């Protein structure tokens, strides 16, 4: 098991190296000269040239990439082009906020979608099944900035239940987390429902019933645990969707997270900051999926014995 985790972590390295190169490459395509952008209006040719040299912008892309990687290995993510602040420091401040938001959203979404999925499956084709699924699907069909604004108007302006934005206390977490959560409710509900449908047709469910296990207990003890296995995979994948969704939600709810930071940095062509954000996004996404894979072992004993 530990061996497996280590092997998986090792596999992260080539992926991260690739991710960084890819982003490096894409950003290099972005029009606009960083030096000009940093210096802004009225900068002299000479100053621009100096700065380009200072930042190593005239080196071939591959050299710039190499230099970045060398620094990165030494734990140095560089300084933001636009603010001069340390990228690592900035990310350290911002990332926990995004993490807090996405984790809460995942839990909210699980809390909503697993019961809907289970009930829909046990009452396939019932009204609940139809309505439950449609409600879940409406969730992913709404652009989150639109939903967010409507929620703010409704729940903070009209009803005054929650703050309209910012990051102060548990109350301020609810609206953004909910906005984020409803976007991923559908796929988790969908997966739970279909895997539940599959599971409740399995022989071992009949075995359990034949033992005299009550209906409730058959669902909760025998079926759910099996049905959760595919659902858990989707939860892992949805984490990525949520991280992406955070970009919009953070803007609407003035949440000081890393998603907003990344978009702002892309717009400023702030390469070190964008790279820092991407690294953190990719790492956390990969690690969450690793955790999910490990989680399988606790749900599904068959997988545990496959680890080597």
């Amino acid at each position, binding site marked *: 098991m530990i061996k497996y985790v280590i092997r998986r972590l090792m596999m992260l390295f080539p992926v991260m190296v690739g991710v960084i190169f890819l982003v490096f490459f894409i950003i290099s395509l972005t029009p606009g000269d960083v030096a000009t952008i940093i*210096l802004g209006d009225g900068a002299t040719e000479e100053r621009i040239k100096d700065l380009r040299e200072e930042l190593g912008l005239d080196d071939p892309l591959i050299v710039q990439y190499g230099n970045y990687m060398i620094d990165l290995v030494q734990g140095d993510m560089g300084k933001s082009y636009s603010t001069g602040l340390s990228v690592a420091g900035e990310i350290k401040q911002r990332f926990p906020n995004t993490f807090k938001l996405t984790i*809460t959203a995942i839990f909210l979404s699980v809390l909503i979608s697993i019961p809907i999925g289970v009930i829909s499956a046990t009452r396939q084709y019932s009204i609940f099944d139809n309505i439950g699924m449609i409600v879940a699907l409406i969730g992913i069909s709404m652009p989150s900035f639109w939903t967010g604004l409507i929620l703010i108007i409704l729940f903070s*302006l009209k009803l005054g239940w929650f703050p309209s934005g*910012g990051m*102060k206390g548990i109350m301020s977490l609810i609206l953004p987390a909910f906005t984020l959560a409803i976007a991923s409710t559908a796929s988790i509900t969908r997966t739970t429902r279909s895997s539940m449908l599959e599971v409740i047709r399995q022989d071992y469910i009949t075995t359990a019933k034949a033992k005299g296990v009550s209906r409730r207990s058959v669902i*909760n003890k025998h079926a759910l645990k099996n049905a959760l296995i595919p659902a858990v995979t989707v939860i892992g994948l949805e984490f990525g969707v949520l991280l992406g969704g955070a970009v919009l939600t953070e803007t609407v709810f003035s949440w000081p997270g890393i998603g907003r930071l990344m978009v702002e940095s892309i717009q400023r062509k702030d390469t070190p900051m964008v790279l820092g954000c991407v690294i953190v996004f990719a790492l956390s996404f990969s690690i969450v999926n690793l955790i999910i894979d490990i989680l399988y072992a606790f749900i599904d004993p068959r997988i545990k014995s496959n680890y080597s």
Partner: protein
Amino acid sequence: MDYKKKMTMLFALVLMSLTLPVYAGGAQEETEMAKDEVVVALSADITSLDPQGHNDTKSEMVSFLLFNRLFRLNTDFEVVPDLAESWEQPSDTEWVIKIKEGVKFHDGSEMTAEDVKFSMDRSKEAPKVQQVLSEVASIEVVDKYTVKFTTNSAFAPFLYTLVHAGTSVIPKAYVESGDEFAKPIGSGPYTFVEWISGDQVVLKKNEAYFDKNNMGQSSTITFKVIPEGTSRTIALETGEVDVVPELPTIDMNVVKDNSDLALYEKPSTRVDFFAMNTEKAPFDNVKVRQALNYAIDKDAIITVAIDGAGVKAESVLAPSFLGYKAGPYSYNPAKAKELLAAAGYPDGFEMEIMTSGDDRKKIAEVIQASLMEVGIKASIKMLEWGTFIDSVLRGDEETLILGWTSNPDPDATLTPHWFSGNIGGMNFARVNDPEMDRMLKEGREELDLGKREVIYNKLHTYIMDKAPWVPLFVKNNIVGANAALKGVELSPQGLWNLEKLHY
């Protein structure tokens, strides 16, 4: 225990562990009833706490509270002394300025001429603000409280350059300590408490401020970052913030109709304009440029883009500027068509409008619609700000939309925009006209106000005749605030003198 219960418990636990510490903070805040705190909404985070490390209005608001400059602008944009005690001009190129004695930095040390020189030298080198003092050749310390500036040539608007945040005086010892402005030390009416990236900047009143007449009024000022316009207005309505310096014009009525809120409006000096690249056909043809001046419906732009919160711009500067003169154009599509036909484009042509930002996008759309009326097919190219500026400097654009706020001396705006040497810089229309260059030089070197006015008068007429721009409008600054908030002052640049805000 069944799995549902387990999941619920797990969720509750995670939620608690995530939010408990934060929640404690929230509760504390609620018990603090006395309203001695002012929360200002910002549309974007500040970029730096180093007054010479930024060049944007948000960071400037914070810098103005933390630091002092030798001079400052009052709400009418007149230069008034800040740190300066007295000043004189021994020659056309020399300025000797004496600073107030006994000004203390937040760490208790005293400000000297040494700090002033250090700050100005640093400013000239700082990438973001190096252009501010570009006319200054050297700075010398005369005595403990006196410095001497020498400019490259006679430079009438010199004092105006010393109001820029980039010329803030910072303690030499602090900068040399290598803290890199993590906890900035200034001399201003407020001291630094914390900056939570992307969230807020908190400042505390400086009880030992040297200028007893301009002391900070409320004990804390918090700048909260709220990027989304609608959210900013709502935060004002729910009381989460006390003042919104950049209230979306669309929400003016919401604020007006709410008796708990107050709306402040004041004309700005910012001219939003449509510039044509005179190096590119068909905009090298003056008739085409004039045609566009007739074709664009400025009233529609004002209605659509800024909800009526402004006035038509008739020339390249705001009317309040020295030597202002309105141009001859009015909305007249028929005349525009005539001119286009005369220029050889009776059926119009295709062109591209380049700009950046959501507000300008709307302007672009109205222009696009106006031009459609006279047969010109315009496409809009939206770019990110950085990319936009870069493209503009390289002259990639055919036409562009931009706004320009400047210090109140006309030269600070006219020279960058019209001097041929600034092609590749802020000379957006890429105008290379010796006559214009001559008038500009004359204006900046003329120290007599009356004569300057005449020169600039002629210049306005000349520029508008050549018509490289279509000046669009001068927008009002709109500030929304809690009706109970006192000390809300506006300058042409917007919310001003924030140290006066209090309940």
